[in-house]
C-alpha cells in the first residue's frame, strides 16, 4: 500500500513540476510568438505591394482592414461588413449590413479598440452585440484596403482554396482596377519539388500584371515556359534584367494563360482557379459595398 502511495505521490509531484515549467515558458514566449506572426504577415503584405527593406513604405501608407460576416436571421441571410469609420476616434467602426441583392439594410455603429479588432474572438463578440440577439454571426473573410494619403492604392486579399493535396493559403494583391499586383503563397501541403514549386518566382510571378479581363477567363496551358519570360519573372532574384526590359516582357505576356509547372498540372490549375475565384468574388462584392457606402454617406478612410 505504501508503495502505491509513494508512486502516486512522486508521479503527481513530477507532473506538477512539469506543468509549472511548461506554463512558465508559455507565458514568457507566447507574446513573442504572436508578435512574430504579425510581423511576418506585415512583411509579406508590404513586399507584395513592392516595398522591401531597400524601398521602405512611405509614412502616408495606411492599411485598413475590412471584415466580412454572414448574418443569419431566421431564414434570411445578409452580409455584414465591419468597416472603420473616418474622421474621429480610432476605435470607431460601423457594421453595414447589405442584403444578398446588394441593397442596404442597416448600419450599426460600434466602438472597438484597433488591437482588439485584430483578435477574431473579440471582434466577433463586438459584432454580435452590435447586431443584437436573434441573429447568428459567422465570420467570412477579410480584405485590407491600402491607401496612400487617403487614395486607394491596392487591395490585399488573404484567401484559401483547395489544392492538389489539401488547402493552399495565399495573399493576393490587386490594384484599384483589379489588376494583379502580386501573389504570395502562405501555406500549402503540395509535394516538394513538384506541386511545391508553386512558391517559386517563375510560377507565382506569372500572375503579376494580369488585367482583370484576362483574369476572368484565365486558363492553364501545358507548354514550356519561354526563356525570356522566365528571365523576366525571376529578375527580382537574379537581377539580370533591367526594370524596363522586365516591364516590356511582362506587357507582352499579360494576356497569356498561365504556363503550368512541369509534373504539377493539377496544382497549377488549382492555384489559377483559386485566384480567379477570389478576384471575381471580391470585384463583385466591393462594387456593392462602395455603392452602399456612397449612398448612405458613410465616411470611411478609403
Amino acid at each position, binding site marked *: 500500500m505504501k508503495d502505491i502511495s509513494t508512486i502516486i505521490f512522486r508521479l503527481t509531484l513530477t507532473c506538477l513540476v*512539469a*506543468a509549472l515549467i*511548461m*506554463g512558465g515558458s*508559455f507565458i514568457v514566449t507566447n507574446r513573442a510568438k504572436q508578435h512574430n506572426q504579425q510581423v511576418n504577415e506585415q512583411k509579406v503584405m508590404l513586399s507584395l505591394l513592392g516595398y522591401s527593406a531597400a524601398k521602405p513604405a512611405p509614412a502616408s501608407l495606411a492599411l485598413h482592414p475590412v471584415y466580412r460576416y*454572414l448574418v443569419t436571421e431566421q431564414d434570411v*441571410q445578409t*452580409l455584414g461588413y465591419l468597416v472603420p469609420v473616418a474622421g474621429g476616434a480610432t476605435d470607431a467602426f460601423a457594421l453595414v449590413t447589405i442584403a*444578398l441583392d*446588394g441593397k442596404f439594410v442597416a448600419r450599426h455603429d460600434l466602438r472597438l479598440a484597433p488591437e482588439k479588432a485584430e483578435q477574431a474572438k473579440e471582434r466577433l463578440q463586438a459584432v454580435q452585440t452590435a447586431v443584437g440577439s436573434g441573429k447568428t454571426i459567422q465570420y*467570412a473573410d477579410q480584405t485590407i484596403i491600402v491607401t496612400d494619403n487617403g487614395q486607394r492604392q491596392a487591395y490585399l486579399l488573404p484567401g484559401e*482554396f*483547395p489544392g*492538389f*493535396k489539401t488547402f493552399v493559403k495565399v495573399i493576393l494583391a490587386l490594384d484599384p482596377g483589379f489588376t494583379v499586383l502580386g501573389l504570395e503563397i502562405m501555406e500549402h501541403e503540395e*509535394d516538394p519539388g513538384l506541386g511545391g514549386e508553386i512558391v517559386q518566382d517563375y510560377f507565382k510571378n506569372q500572375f503579376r500584371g494580369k488585367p482583370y479581363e484576362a483574369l476572368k477567363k484565365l486558363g492553364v496551358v501545358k507548354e514550356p515556359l519561354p526563356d525570356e519570360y522566365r528571365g523576366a519573372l525571376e529578375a527580382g532574384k537574379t537581377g539580370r534584367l533591367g526594370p524596363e526590359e522586365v516591364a516590356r516582357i511582362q506587357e507582352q505576356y499579360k494576356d497569356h494563360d498561365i504556363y503550368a509547372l512541369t509534373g504539377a498540372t*493539377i496544382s497549377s490549375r488549382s492555384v489559377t*482557379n483559386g485566384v480567379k*475565384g477570389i478576384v471575381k*468574388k471580391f470585384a*463583385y*462584392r466591393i462594387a456593392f459595398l462602395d455603392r452602399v457606402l456612397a449612398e448612405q454617406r458613410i465616411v470611411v478612410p478609403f
Partner: protein
Amino acid sequence: MHRLTMLMRALAVLTLALLLPVLAQADGLIAGKSFGNDREIVVTFKAPVDQAVFADPAHYLVYEESDPDIRLELADVRLDSTGKIAFLGFKEPLNTTRPHVVSMIDLPAAVTGRTVETFRVAKPYLGYLLSILVSALLINNFVFTKYLGLCVFFGTSKRRDTAKGMGVTFTIVMVVSALMSWFFYQFVMKPHGLDFLQIVVFIGLVSLTVQAVDTILRKVNPALFNAFGVYLVLVIANCVIIAVPLIMANNEYNFLETFMLALGAGGGFLLALYMMASVRERMELARVPKSFKGVPIAFIVAGQFALAFLGFSGLSLF
C-alpha cells in the same frame, strides 16, 4: 481472428448508422440530389415534372453555402427522357468540396403547394469519412509517405507473425488513445486554452492506454497476452502514436473523423509491416553483400515500397 470479426461487425453497424439518414428520404418534390461531373448538379424528382418549368434556368438559384450572395451561372438545364432527372449544367467548374444550395423559385403552386423549394447538395459525409480512412491507409501511409514510426518498423518487420502481432496491437492502442485524446482535447484543453500541453497530454494518454491494455489483456485473455503483450511497450516508441492526435488537433476533426484517421493509421502500419516482413523473409535467402545484410538492405527495400506508394498520391475516390 475473433477480434477481426468483431471489428468487421462494428464497422458494418457504423456504416448502416451513417447511411440511415441518407435512406430516409426528404419529403416533397426531391428524391435525390448529387454532383454530376465537375460542372453539373443532378436532381432526381419523385415524379415526372413539367418540362416548361423545370428545364428553364430562370427557375433555379444556385450558390455555395458559404457565399450566398454569389449566384452561380447556369449554362443550361436538361431533363432526361423520363422527366424525372434534371441535369443542371454550369458555366464554370463547381467547387465540389463545398456544399451548395439549390433554390427552385417561382414554381407553380399546383405542383407542391409551395412556390419555393430549397435543398442542399453536398458530397456524402460517409464518402468524406471513408476518404479520410483511405488517405491515412494508402495515400498518406504513415510509414511510406510520412516516414514516421520507422524505428519500430524496422525492428518488427523481420517475420510475418511479428508483423501481424505488432500491427494489430498498434491499431487497437491507436484507436483507443486517439479517441481518448479527442475527448481530452475537446472538453478539457480547448475550453481552457491549454493547447501548449498537447504533447504531454497525448503521450500521457498513450502510456495510460498501453498500461490499461496490458492489464486487461493479462487478466482477460492470457493466451492473447502471450502473443501480443511484448509489443505493447514498443508502441510508445512509435512516432505515429503521437502524430495522429497532433493531426487531429491541428485539423479539428470530430469524433468520427478521428476514429477513421486512427483506424487508417493503424491499418496502414499493419499493411506496411506485413508487406515488409514478407519481403524480408525472402531476402534472408538472397545473396546480399555482407555490409548490406540486415538493416541497410531493409532500408533500400523500404525505399522501393515508398516509391510504389508514391503512385497513390492524389488518389481521390469520393
